[in-house]
């Protein structure tokens, strides 16, 4: 019943997988930042993505603003929301056992989703901005996905440069490695926490903005990205930032290849099987990192 798989089909699917993977990588990097710096498992990551998507939607429908330009708005807005969440809520569980942070962020995620349902209703929204695909030889690449991948790649690259080259970025990495020693070195850990949470939220929001042209926008849209981000973090190694990139691309590839060679029905299951395998064989993740 399944048609014969040609190299062209394979190529098409591999590229699709990588395009999707870049987006996962960017969103997961945010989650990884929060875990790496604060040892907090942020279940509210998906809802933050959802907020970014809604900012873009409202700007598009009221002002007609190009969704990609709205990145300049959605990222800072959600950055501030993230900072506020950290300052008033998440800060209290930074030193607590991981279950506390899970419970708190779970509560935040429920609150955010329900606030969104009250404010925006569950009506499905969408941004009709760019459709169609780039046709290169026998391959067709969805325009919206290619552009999303380019932006995601760019933003992730900038984030990495920031982490590697700037003082603040190095301070964040220092706090990730050891909070006590960083404090002794004179780094204001509280501010780092605020900033890292804000940055992570901004990355999630960027993901939300980029998917507005591809998927239906509704308050519960973030949940699937929370799960995928967790998968990516474990795959790549918790607290390992390049690991998030590798994990994201790997997840995107695995999903599409599983859909092609098996059936789409099992692509989620295959991702989780991969997760179990990685945990069994290399529990610190493919690139190594702190064990969760």
């Amino acid at each position: 019943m399944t048609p014969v798989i040609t190299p062209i089909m394979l190529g098409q699917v591999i590229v699709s997988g990588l395009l999707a993977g870049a987006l996962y990588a960017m969103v997961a990097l945010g989650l990884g930042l929060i875990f790496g710096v604060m040892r907090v498992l942020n279940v509210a990551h998906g809802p933050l993505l959802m907020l970014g998507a809604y900012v873009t939607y409202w700007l598009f429908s009221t002002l007609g603003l190009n969704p990609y330009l709205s990145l300049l708005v959605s990222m800072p807005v959600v950055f501030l929301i993230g900072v506020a969440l950290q300052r008033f809520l998440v800060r209290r569980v930074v030193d607590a056992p991981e279950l506390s942070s899970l419970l708190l962020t779970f509560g935040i995620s429920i609150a955010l989703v329900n606030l969104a349902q009250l404010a925006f209703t569950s009506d499905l929204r969408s941004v009709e901005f760019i459709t169609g695909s780039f046709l290169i030889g026998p391959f067709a690449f969805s325009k919206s996905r290619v552009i999303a991948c380019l932006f995601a790649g760019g933003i992730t690259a900038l984030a990495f440069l920031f982490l590697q080259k700037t003082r603040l970025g190095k301070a964040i990495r220092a706090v990730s490695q050891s909070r006590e020693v960083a404090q002794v070195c004179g780094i204001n850990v509280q501010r780092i926490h605020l900033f890292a949470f804000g940055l992570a939220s901004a990355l999630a929001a960027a993901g939300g903005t980029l998917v507005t042209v591809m998927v239906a926008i509704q308050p519960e849209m973030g949940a699937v990205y929370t799960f995928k981000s967790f998968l990516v973090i474990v795959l790549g190694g918790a607290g390992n930032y390049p690991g998030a990139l590798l994990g994201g691309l790997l997840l995107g590839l695995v999903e599409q290849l599983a859909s092609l060679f098996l059936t789409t029905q099992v692509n989620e299951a295959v991702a989780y099987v991969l997760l179990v395998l990685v945990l069994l064989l290399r529990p610190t993740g493919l690139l190594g990192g702190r064990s969760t």
Partner: protein
Amino acid sequence: MTTTTKRIFYQGGAVLTALIAALTLGAGAALAQAPIKIGASISLTGTYAKPGTYQKEGYELCAQEANDKGGVLGRKVEFVVYDDQSTPATGVRLYEKLITEDKVDAVMGPYSSPITEAVANVSEKYKKVMVSPLASTTSIFKKGRKYIFMVISPAEVYLEGLVDMAAKRGLKTIAIVNEDTLFTKSSAIGVADLAKKRGMQIVLQEAYPKGNTDFSALLTKLKAANPDVIAASTYFDDAVALTRQMKELNVNPKMYGVTVGGDLPEFYDLLKQNSEYIYGATQWEHTLPYPGQKEFMAAYQTKFKREPAYHSAAGYAGCVIYLEAVKKAGSLDADKVREQLLKLETRTMFGDYKVDADGFQVAHKMVMFQWQDGKKVTVWPDEFATGKARYPTPPWNQR
């Protein structure tokens, strides 16, 4: 007896008599006035909020009209509705509450198959008749339940029209895709059965998980299989995503049909001209020549200031059918009403009603429409068609 004792005796006696008189009269008056309370849990929030709210409006309109006509069995009809938040477990809890705490006289069904399946156990436990107007999964009604009744057509026949039209045109190959949940799975199985009976070859049949947004691999396979017809058992967001990605990957079947979601005005709002030529299935259209359509449309428009969706129509019809059975039975007794519902054969503004011994709907017919110039044109079955189907669907790059 002493004077004090006598006073207590007489005064106490007077108060007691007055109390008893008041209670009896009051109770008598209350009983005569007590409305028939019909309980239901409906999805007013969560993913099913939209269709759930439409269903509630149907119930409310039905109750209002019944009361305007003097009520049922001399009593007013009153709905007690709670929000099950689109969650089966919450629905179960709420029906328990409605039946045991609120002591409702009757219950009506919630929105969607999964929630109906879950709460049907509750209504069966307490032997309460439950007309379930918005559940289309056959298995719910084939588990030996005695008090549950179906109103709409089952999932298996949703795309019957698509297969019939394709077979009549001599198309040979069909691909079936579906979301991996209760209703859409049943619908896909139904399409497969119908296609096989008509001698069509199923070149690909695949499910995708709920919430799946990237169909590239699936569509790559579909493109390679090159079917004449693509039958997609979908809800709303997957129908939209699938359509968009079909265009992106240039997948061009001669006929492409979807289930739930394709009939919503939002489908056209989101896809605009990309929704042209797409076939959809619907349980009801207000243009169908059923009795009472105009009156229903006018009443709904007056009360809710917009046009009804089929969920409202189904809710309304379900309630009307239930109250009809109550009138015929002359009581709210579950077994008497059940007897009437099993015997009843009628045509409401929603279509035909007749159930088999399990309460499974056997008379109601789906209709298929096609998006043409931004409007839904009914194209199947022939007796209700208002226009001809535009065939074949032209390739994406030629539109």
